[in-house]
């Protein structure tokens, strides 16, 4: 036998380098944002501040910036009012709650969408995939049908949102595990079920007043957010956002798939329950406050990924700021662009779709 010398040659330099055709000459293609996520975060925080301030100024009743500042200060310090009292009232009682609500709902929907995209290993899902919005919509519809109490509508909406996801989760259990495919299919089943039930409620509702109320509510609006709403739902959403931020690196590991994540030492079933629970609570609370606002949970995480890449350590905080800023901006347009307020669920898509289309065409993301 003659021994072949090639195998020996390879072995001597084996392990030092790997010569793949793709490996050799491809330049590093990390974007500037991926290398400086902290800077992007600070910039976005600035943008958010500016947008919030502009939102305080503009509306049906325009308030000059110095009056906004004075009105804000007067609610904390005793300052003599040298401006119209309606300005203070508009800023403090109307616009601030609405801006905080927009911030929380936008941030919450965006971070739960980003978390779900990681957990489902699919950038096409949003936080509504397990049926939370569809269930919450049904709860609100029967609430409107049966009573005139906004509180009852909100409670039913929240409860049915959680119930829908609970049903989808229960349906997807296979031998004490919840495979991702089963979760998606169960979510589709539950979503269809509650959509059909909502249609039925609309069909039987009084077409003169109840049905338009249901339709308008389902389209979403920050119009009827009240201070008590914020007192109760605000902390719920804020705490859930903090919870998702706390497990953000673990979501990275979960994107490798259940089996691999478990091999890496992650208790995947527990982590999935935590993510589903927090995202669902956020979305259900958001729907309670503002009706169904689609699009944000799907698209904001994509915009975030274009800015800082797929690492959830940075993507989740960025999604919080982007989602909040986006909804504040859209809501400002919703209440100023037309004589009557435009439903925000329509605007998020009408404004968001072209922005997203442009981003998508200009950067070719790697997913």
């Amino acid at each position, binding site marked *: *036998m003659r*021994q072949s010398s090639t*195998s*020996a040659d*390879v*072995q001597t330099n*084996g*392990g*030092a*380098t*790997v*010569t*793949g*055709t*793709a*490996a050799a000459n*491809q330049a*590093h*293609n*990390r974007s500037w944002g991926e290398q400086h996520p902290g800077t992007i975060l600070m910039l976005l925080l600035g943008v958010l501040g500016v947008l919030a301030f502009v939102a305080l100024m503009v509306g049906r009743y325009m308030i000059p910036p110095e009056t906004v500042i004075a009105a804000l200060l007067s609610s904390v310090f005793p300052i003599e009012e040298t401006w119209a009292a309606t300005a203070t009232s508009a800023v403090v009682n109307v616009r601030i709650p609405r801006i905080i609500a927009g911030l929380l709902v936008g941030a919450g929907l965006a971070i739960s969408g980003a978390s779900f995209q*990681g957990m489902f*290993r*699919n*950038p096409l899902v949003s936080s509504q995939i397990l049926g939370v919005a569809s269930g919450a919509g049904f709860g609100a519809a029967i609430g409107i049908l049966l009573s005139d109490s906004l509180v009852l509508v909100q409670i039913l909406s929240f409860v049915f949102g959680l119930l829908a996801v609970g049903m989808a989760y229960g349906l997807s259990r296979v*031998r004490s595990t919840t495979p991702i495919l089963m979760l998606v299919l169960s979510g589709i089943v539950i979503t269809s079920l509650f959509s059909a039930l909502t249609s039925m409620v609309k069909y039987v509702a009084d077409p003169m007043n109840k049905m338009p109320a249901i339709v308008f509510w389902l389209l979403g609006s920050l119009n009827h957010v009240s201070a008590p709403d914020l007192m109760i739902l605000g902390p719920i959403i804020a705490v859930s956002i903090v919870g998702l931020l*706390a*497990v*953000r*690196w*673990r979501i*990275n*590991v979960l*994107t*490798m*798939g259940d*089996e*691999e*994540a*478990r*091999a*890496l*030492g*992650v*208790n*995947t079933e527990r*982590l999935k329950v935590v993510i589903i629970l927090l995202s669902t609570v956020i979305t259900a609370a958001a729907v309670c406050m503002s009706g169904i606002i689609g699009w944000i949970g799907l698209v904001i995480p994509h915009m975030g*990924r274009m800015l800082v*890449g*797929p*690492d959830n*350590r940075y993507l989740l905080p960025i999604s919080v700021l982007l989602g909040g800023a986006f909804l504040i901006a859209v809501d400002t347009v919703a209440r100023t662009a037309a004589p009557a307020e435009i439903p925000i669920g329509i605007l998020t898509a009408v404004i968001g779709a072209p922005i997203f289309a442009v981003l998508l065409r200009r950067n070719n*993301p*790697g*997913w």
Partner: protein
Amino acid sequence: MGCRISVEDIAFNYPGGATVFTGISLAVDEGCVYSLLGPNGTGKSTLLKCMAGLISPSHGRVHLDGRDIAGMQPHEIARQVGFVPQTQVSPFPFMVRDIVLMGRASHLGPFATPSAEDEEIAADALGRVGISHLADRPCTGISGGEWQLVLIARAIAQRPGILLLDEPTSHLDLGNQVRVLDVIRGLAEDGMTIVVATHFPDHALLTSNQVAILKDQRILAMGSPEEVIGEDTMHRAYGVDVRILHLDDPFNRRICVPVMGPSRGTAP
């Protein structure tokens, strides 16, 4: 050199009832490279997943340092056992360094993010398999051979005493196959206990101290590679003819070569 990981009389059935294997027992000693051979579908991957605690056997036990892994938490197992799966690349374009960093998950609390020390361990692991230059590349833009090395680096960052590899050389070109084998041999020399499922009898001859062949739901043969990888056993395992030849000095080892009869198509 004690036994690190062992399976005792384990069986695995699919939920529908089809049996993958039954009555399998084997023990892997510390520092040993143990190869699992056998035709497609004999359950080599399934056996490895049982050993990694990823699926529960229908019958029998897996012991890790004498402890039944059925009662252990995922992070307790993962600190001892690294698993290199056969997988597709991540759906998201994570940086290679971030993929390797995931190996630290079992050492971190549920709300923790990796520290500078974890980053360093991940960088060391990349260096260990010779792919430090890939650290800042998106994992969706590297070759299959590179991805395999990334997965091995991730398992090394886990700092386990035992490494289970599921067909690490399948789908790789000859050069990358040898590079992966070289990494495996280096890890074994550093004292890691390794179990590797493979389709290549030659790779078992090159790297292992022990071999088991799975066939028809059972172990067909087990022992040293010289005992197990013979012309007769290979024929019984795979149903084809092979010749076992000997490479002289300086290699002084055996190779396994498939042989085919004369082509029937060209008979006169």
